[in-house]
C-alpha cells in the first residue's frame, strides 16, 4: 500500500494509536527542542524529530508513521502552549531500524539513554543524571507513587524494571541499587523479591507515598543526607528514577526503541478504567475514548495524581513522556466549596512533609505579606497538596503558597531596565542587582 492510497482512505477510529499525534518539543526540564523535520515531511516510528544540543535537552521522536501536518503552538498538559509537531498517521507501522545493544558498555548505555530522549517522571532527562559530575553511589527506583505503580508495575514488567535498574547502575557506575516500596504494598515487594537475583540490589520499605516532586525528601529518607531544595538527589550521590524511567531505559538499550510510548492508567468517571499503552502525543480524549469514554459529564481531567496532579484545560492535550495517570472527575466530584477562616487546627502542619506551617504561610500570602512568607520558608514547599487535602476549612493553601512564591520572585528580581550600573560603586561594573535603594545610602 503506498502512502497515496492510505491518505485517501477514510480515517477509521483506531484502537490505541491515534490518527494524529501532537508531540510537544518540550517534555522535560531544560530547553526546547528545535524541530528536525518540516511540514509535509514523512516520518517513521521512532524517527528523531526534534533535538537541541545547546543545553539540557531530551530529543523527541515520532511515535507513529505518517507525515508532519503542522509545527505550531499547541496545548501542553503542564505548561500552557508549547510549540509542537503535529503528525498525521498513514495507518502503517513503518519504523526506523532500531539499534539494540547486547552486552552494552557504560558509554553505550549513556548514548542509548540520551538518544532515546528518556524523561523521568520528575521531568528530568535521565541521561543527565548518568553523566553528572557527582559521584553516584546508589540508584533508587521509587515504586511508591501510586500512578506510576498502577501503570508500570504489572508483573510482566517487573523483570524489565529490574533490568533497567541494572543498566542504570552500570551506566552511572553505582555499586548499589534499591527499590523503594510502600510498606503496605506486600504483593509488589514479593514479586520483585522473587525475580531479583542480585545481592547489590535491595528492597527498602517506607511508610509514605512519595510523589515525583518529593525526590529530595526520599533521597534524604534513604541515604540520610539532607538535600536542600536548591539541589537534586544527584548531589547526595543518588540517582532517583521511577518504574516508568527504568522501563524506558530497558527498551532503549535492549531493543533500541526511543521513549515513544507511555503506560497510562485511566481512572475515575470513565466506563472502562484501566491501564493502556499509549503513544506519546495521543490526545487525552482518544485515551479516554479507548477506555470506554466518559461516564456522565466530566468536570475535571487531571494528569498524574489527584493530590498533586495538574488539571487540564480541555481533553485535547497530548500524553507526554511523564504522563502516567489520567483521572476524570465527574462534575459533582469537583471541589467547589468556598474557603472558610483558618481555625489553626494544625492539621496542615502535621501532614506537611517538609515541616513548614502551610496555614500560616497561606494566611500571610492572603494578606499580601510576602516577606513574612519568605521568612517562614515558603520556598521549601514542594507543592505536594497534602495540606489542602486535610484542611477542614477548605483553605486554598497550595494556591496561596504558589502565589506567594511567584510574588516573591517578582519582588526579588529587578527588571533589566532598572538594573543600571551605579556610578561610583567600586564593587563591580555590572548592572546592580541590588538596585539603588539599598546602595545609595552607603556610597553617596
Amino acid at each position: 500500500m503506498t502512502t497515496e492510497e492510505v491518505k485517501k482512505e477514510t480515517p477509521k477510529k483506531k484502537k490505541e494509536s491515534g490518527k494524529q499525534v501532537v508531540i510537544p518539543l518540550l517534555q522535560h526540564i531544560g530547553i526546547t527542542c528545535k524541530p528536525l523535520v518540516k511540514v509535509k515531511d514523512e516520518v517513521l516510528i521512532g524517527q528523531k524529530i526534534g533535538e537541541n544540543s545547546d543545553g539540557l535537552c531530551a530529543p523527541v521522536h515520532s511515535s507513529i508513521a505518517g507525515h508532519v501536518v503542522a509545527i505550531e503552538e499547541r496545548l501542553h498538559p503542564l505548561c500552557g502552549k508549547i510549540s509542537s509537531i503535529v503528525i498525521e498517521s498513514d495507518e502503517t507501522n513503518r519504523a526506523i531500524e532500531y539499534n539494540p545493544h547486547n552486552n552494552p558498555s557504560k558509554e553505550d548505555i549513556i548514548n542509548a539513554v540520551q538518544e532515546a530522549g528518556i524523561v523521568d517522571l520528575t521531568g528530568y532527562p535521565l541521561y543527565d543524571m548518568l553523566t553528572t559530575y557527582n559521584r553516584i553511589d546508589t540508584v533508587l527506583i521509587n515504586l511508591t507513587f501510586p500512578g506510576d505503580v498502577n501503570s508500570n508495575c504489572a508483573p510482566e514488567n517487573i523483570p524489565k524494571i529490574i533490568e533497567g535498574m541494572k543498566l542504570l547502575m552500570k551506566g552511572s557506575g553505582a555499586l548499589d541499587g534499591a527499590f523503594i516500596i510502600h510498606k503496605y504494598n506486600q504483593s509488589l515487594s514479593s514479586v520483585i523479591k522473587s525475580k531479583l537475583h542480585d545481592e547489590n540490589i535491595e528492597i527498602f520499605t517506607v511508610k509514605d507515598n512519595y510523589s515525583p516532586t518529593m525526590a529530595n525528601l526520599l533521597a534524604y529518607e534513604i541515604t540520610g543526607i539532607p538535600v536542600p531544595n536548591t539541589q537534586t538527589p544527584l548531589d547526595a550521590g543518588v540517582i532517583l528514577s521511577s518504574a516508568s524511567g527504568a522501563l524506558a531505559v530497558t527498551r532503549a538499550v535492549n531493543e533500541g526503541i526511543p521513549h515513544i510510548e507511555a503506560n497510562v492508567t485511566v481512572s475515575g468517571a470513565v466506563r472502562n478504567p484501566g491501564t493502556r499503552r499509549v503513544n506519546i502525543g495521543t490526545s487525552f480524549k482518544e485515551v479516554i475514548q479507548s477506555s470506554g469514554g466518559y461516564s456522565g459529564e466530566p468536570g475535571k481531567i487531571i494528569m498524574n495524581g489527584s493530590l498533586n496532579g495538574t488539571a487540564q484545560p480541555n481533553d485535547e492535550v497530548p500524553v507526554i513522556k511523564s504522563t502516567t495517570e489520567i483521572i476524570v472527575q465527574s462534575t459533582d466530584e469537583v471541589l467547589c466549596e468556598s474557603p472558610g477562616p483558618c481555625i489553626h487546627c494544625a492539621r496542615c502542619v502535621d501532614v506537611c512533609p517538609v515541616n513548614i506551617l502551610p496555614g500560616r504561610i497561606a494566611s500571610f500570602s492572603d494578606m499580601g505579606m510576602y516577606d513574612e512568607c519568605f521568612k517562614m520558608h515558603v520556598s521549601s514547599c514542594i507543592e505536594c497538596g497534602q495540606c489542602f487535602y486535610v484542611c477542614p476549612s477548605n483553605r486554598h493553601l497550595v494556591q496561596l503558597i504558589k502565589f506567594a512564591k511567584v510574588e516573591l520572585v517578582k519582588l526579588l528580581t529587578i527588571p533589566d531596565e532598572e538594573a543600571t550600573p551605579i556610578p561610583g560603586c567600586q564593587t563591580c561594573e555590572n548592572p546592580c542587582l541590588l538596585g539603588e535603594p539599598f546602595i545609595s545610602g552607603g556610597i553617596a
Partner: protein
Amino acid sequence: MKLTVSHPAHIREGVTINKIMWSKIAILLVLSLISAVVFGPKALAVVLISVLAAVLTEAGIQKLTKQELTIKDGDAVLIGLIMALLLPPTVDLWIPVVGAFFAVALVKHAFGGLGSTLFNPAIAAWVFMNMSWGALTGSESIPYLSGYTDLFIEFGSGRLAEVSSMVLIIGGLYLIYKKYIDWRIPTLYLISTIVMALLIGEELSYVITGMLFLGIFILAPDPTTSPITKKGRFIYGILCGILTVVYGYLTYDYVVAVLFTVFFANAVAPFIEKNTFPKPVNEVSA
C-alpha cells in the same frame, strides 16, 4: 464540555469544621443529659439558655455587621454549651445570658470571629463571670474520686461538666481517632498532670475530676487557642499539666485549676508558638 482548572489537590479528606464542631457538641450533649439526671431539669435549663443566648448573639452580630451567618458551623453552639457546663446548676439564669454575650461578642467577634480568638471564648467568659459574681457562680461541692463508679457518674459534682468522666474519655478518644483533635495536647496534658501530682505527692483522687477530662479533651486542644507547631503543642500540653497541679495544690480546688490553667495557657500559646517554629527539612543551614 466545561472543565474546571484548579490548583492541586483535587480531592479532600472530608474532615470539615462542621464535623469537628458537631462531634464535640454531640459529646457535650450526652454530658448535659447525664447532668440532668444528677442535678434535675434545672441543669438542662442552664444549658439551653446559654446555647440560645450564644447563638442569638452571634446571629445578631453577624446581621448587624452584614456578615454571612455562620450558626451552622456550630461554633456558637459549642461556646454556649461549654460555658453552661462550667457553671453550677444552682446559678441564676441571667448569668449564662450575660456570659454567653460576653463570650461571643467580646471574646469571639471583637477579635475577628472564628479562628482569630486569643482566648477560648467559653473560658474567658467563665473567668469574667467568676470575677464579677464569684459567689453566684461558685460551686457547692468539689468532687472527689471515691470509687470507680465515680468515673461513670459522679453525684458529688458541683458543676455540670463533672458528672461523667467516662463520657468525656470515650468522646475524646473518638475525637482523636477521627483526627478531629490532635493527640499531642491531650496525651501530654494527662501524663504531665499525673507525673506532677505524683511528684508533689498529691492524691490522684483529688486531681482526677470530670473537669480535668473536659480540659484534656475539649478545652486545651481547642484548635484556635493552642499552638500550631508540633513542638509547641508538646510544650503546651506539659505546661497545662504543671499549671493544673500547681494551682490545685495551692487552692485545694482542682476543678477551677483546670479552667484557670487553660486560660493562662491560652495567653502564652502565641509565645510558645513563636519560639518553636519548625525548620524545613529540605533547607540546610549555611
